[in-house]
């Protein structure tokens, strides 16, 4: 018995000695904790809320220009409406990733930017004067993509489109209804953020339902699907055996009927919005706490050996260059030289890999809200 006790005693003392030496090896500087709520505050106050306000304002402009166009369908009112549409679409690129809170509840991004649109269904809705588009089957007949069809797609020239609005008031009614739905929904989310903001910032833990985990998941999901796949991969035929699907590009009708080539502008805007979120950069250019700051903290706390944030930032540079080399019109780009599209896709893919493996791993963020036990 005494022998066993001796062994036990010596093992425990080794344990204590090892524990103590590993302590004294280190400099005695205390690493301060990282306050995740600083990221949440910066994201909410300097990015999400102002970007929503911008979008709301741009919708207000579009709404009033649609009203005057429908009242007076002519070239001048049309052109203003088209410009306001493009402006709203660009502003939208900065908020599509925030599928959280009220936006998630009302399926906001589905109602704004589902494409390709369902032409047949839109035309049925116009004829039947359908106002209630809350059914999921109507996601593809509304939103900014729906407006794209309504002002660039119901006929192939500006004059013919204007003529249709002049001849049949139902077009105008439908278009006005689309704006009214978008504006109501946007307004609802903007108002909700006034109260949601506090609980969003306070949820600074690391559970699956904490704000940073949710917003990061939304961001990564958006980047993989909304940006990489929808804007670039799917139209370039990445998922369809090389058969390109040009009608699947974003804002298809504007490019298709040569109103204005906007696909590259929108994709570029989306990529900048993503980079800004990673950097914590607001529309004024001010930079605050972000995923990048958190990764830098992790690296400085000696958790990993190579800092990830510069790697991801240079990935973004390469992706922006690759997108920049594309034609303004993705239909032409895909039809003439698909390889450049695929190259842009690959560059975006690198970011997806780095975010989904390295970033989520280093920040211990589980993919999506999987509710399951571990061991």
């Amino acid at each position, binding site marked *: 018995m005494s022998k*066993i006790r001796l062994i*036990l005693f010596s*093992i*425990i003392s080794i*344990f204590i000695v*090892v*524990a103590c030496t*590993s*302590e004294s*090896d*280190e400099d005695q500087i*205390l*690493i*301060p*904790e*990282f*306050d*995740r709520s600083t990221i949440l505050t910066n994201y909410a106050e300097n990015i999400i809320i102002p970007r929503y306000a911008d979008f709301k304002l741009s919708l207000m402009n579009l709404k009033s220009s649609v009203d005057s166009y429908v009242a007076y369908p002519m070239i001048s009112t049309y052109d203003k409406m088209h410009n306001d549409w493009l402006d709203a679409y660009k502003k939208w690129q900065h908020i599509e990733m925030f599928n959280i809170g009220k936006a998630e509840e009302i399926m906001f991004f589905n109602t704004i930017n589902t494409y390709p649109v369902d032409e047949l269904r839109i035309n049925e809705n116009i004829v039947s004067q359908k106002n209630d588009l809350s059914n999921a089957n109507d996601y593809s007949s509304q939103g900014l993509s729906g407006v794209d069809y309504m002002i660039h797609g119901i006929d192939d020239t500006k004059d013919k489109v204007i003529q249709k609005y002049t001849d049949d008031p139902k077009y105008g009614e439908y278009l006005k209804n689309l704006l009214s739905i978008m504006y109501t929904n946007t307004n609802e989310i903007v108002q909700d953020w006034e109260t949601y903001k506090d609980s969003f910032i306070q949820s*600074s*833990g*690391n*559970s*699956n339902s904490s704000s940073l985990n949710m917003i990061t998941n939304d961001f990564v999901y958006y980047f993989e699907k909304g940006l990489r*796949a929808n804007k670039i*991969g799917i139209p370039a*035929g*990445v*998922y*369809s*055996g*090389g058969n390109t699907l040009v009608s699947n590009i974003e804002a298809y009708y504007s490019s298709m009927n040569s109103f204005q080539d906007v696909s590259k502008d929108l994709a570029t805007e989306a990529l900048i919005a993503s980079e800004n979120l990673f950097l914590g950069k607001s529309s004024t250019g001010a930079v605050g706490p972000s995923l990048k700051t958190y990764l830098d903290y*992790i690296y400085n*706390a*000696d*958790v*990993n*050996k*190579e800092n*990830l944030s510069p*790697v991801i930032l240079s990935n973004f540079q390469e992706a922006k260059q690759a997108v920049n080399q594309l034609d303004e019109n993705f239909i032409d780009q895909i039809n003439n030289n698909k390889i450049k599209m695929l190259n842009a896709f690959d560059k975006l893919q690198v970011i*997806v*890999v*780095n975010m*989904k*493996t*390295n970033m*989520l*791993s*280093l*920040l*211990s963020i*589980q*993919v*999506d809200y*999987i*509710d*399951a*036990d*571990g*061991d």
Partner: protein
Amino acid sequence: MEIITSYLSKKQESTSLAFFRLSFGLLMTFSIIRFWLKGWIKTMYIDPSFHFTFYGFDWVKPLDEYTYLLFFICGLSAFFVAIGYKYYLSIITFFLTFTYIELMDKTTYLNHYYFVSILSFLMIFLPANSSYSVDSYLEKKSYKYSPKWCVDSIKILLFIVYFYSGIAKINYDWLIEAQPLKIWLTTGSYDLPIIGSTLMQQEWFHYFMSWGGMFYDLLIPFILLYSRTRIFGFLLVVFFHVFTVILFPIGMFPYIMIISSLIFFTSQTHQKILDFILNPLTKQIKNIKELKVINIKRKNLALNVVVIFFIIQFLFPFRYTLYPGELFWNEQGYRFSWRVMLMEKRGYTTFKIVDKENKNSFYVMNDSFLTEFQERQMSFQPDFILEYAHFLGDHYKKSGLNEIEVYADSYVALNGRMSKRFVDPNVDLLKEKRGFNNKSWILPLNEKINTF
């Protein structure tokens, strides 16, 4: 030989087995109810259109709506085990249904599910209903003593679980790099009072917890075994597992281990706990004849099975030595070996389908076939990747493509290392057979983790 026969004839109060039976049964009943209430039967077994199976057990599939019935039978049999009603039938039913459930989809594999499976198998051979049971009430007889080896076999199993998970911690990442605890603690919950803002992100604390965790696992069976250190040991068990509950979404595992550890206490302690819980009941029951030692039916068969069972348990975790490459990277022989919380591993894996005739290719959107949970698990585990590749092959062949090849574009990050390409992108996975042969198409990690 004499030592063995004299050991086998040693006896111990039956209360220990009865106590273990009751607590294990109740815990399992609760686990099944919890699983049901969380809606996981639907999300993990009924909703997915595709299931990852264990090689050789492809025939074990969820039973659509009858899966609920399976869980019901499993939970009910667990409850019958707890109260000791038709014990042998109940424990066999529990073992079979629980194991069937675990084999349906390996996405949900957890070490403690495996522990429950093999523990319930072991319990088939133990006379755990010989006292404090409905069976004993109905037969109007109970046994004061059972063979000592019965209780000891449960202790041996717990010894294996702890000791082997301690051995598994003896590796470069855990001891020298303090990974993955460095990541998990630094990014952990800051809501913890005091230590959340002071200790959790200190490097020395990561090493302290890593080394402490290893010594804890290696020593705790011994500390529990000796009467003088037992209470201290049990307090350690509670402290350690409560700590993991706070930090990680770890489910039932800590509770199972805490309750199971009570088996190391004396029969007198078990007696006291049982009397305390069952006092109102046992007072009513008077006319049970108390006999001395229970005679296990087919004792030799039971003993042989138990001995073979333990030989397998001792050897099985070392099967990884039969494979080349880093265990944590290749995961060949990783499961069923008490390797717990050793890896922060993430993957991103997509698949390219190539038409052999015209060399056209396209990528698969994983969410067309897999749930988020399945996709997450598939992305870094080679056997999942291969099984899924074959599934995709079959799927696209059925849909009209005749001659196809399936390639994986796969990246994995392990324990804080930057992600690396995981699967050889030039290997047509359809040509690789599923099974226990070495998966040479996994690209090497090129770093030594020196797993034990």
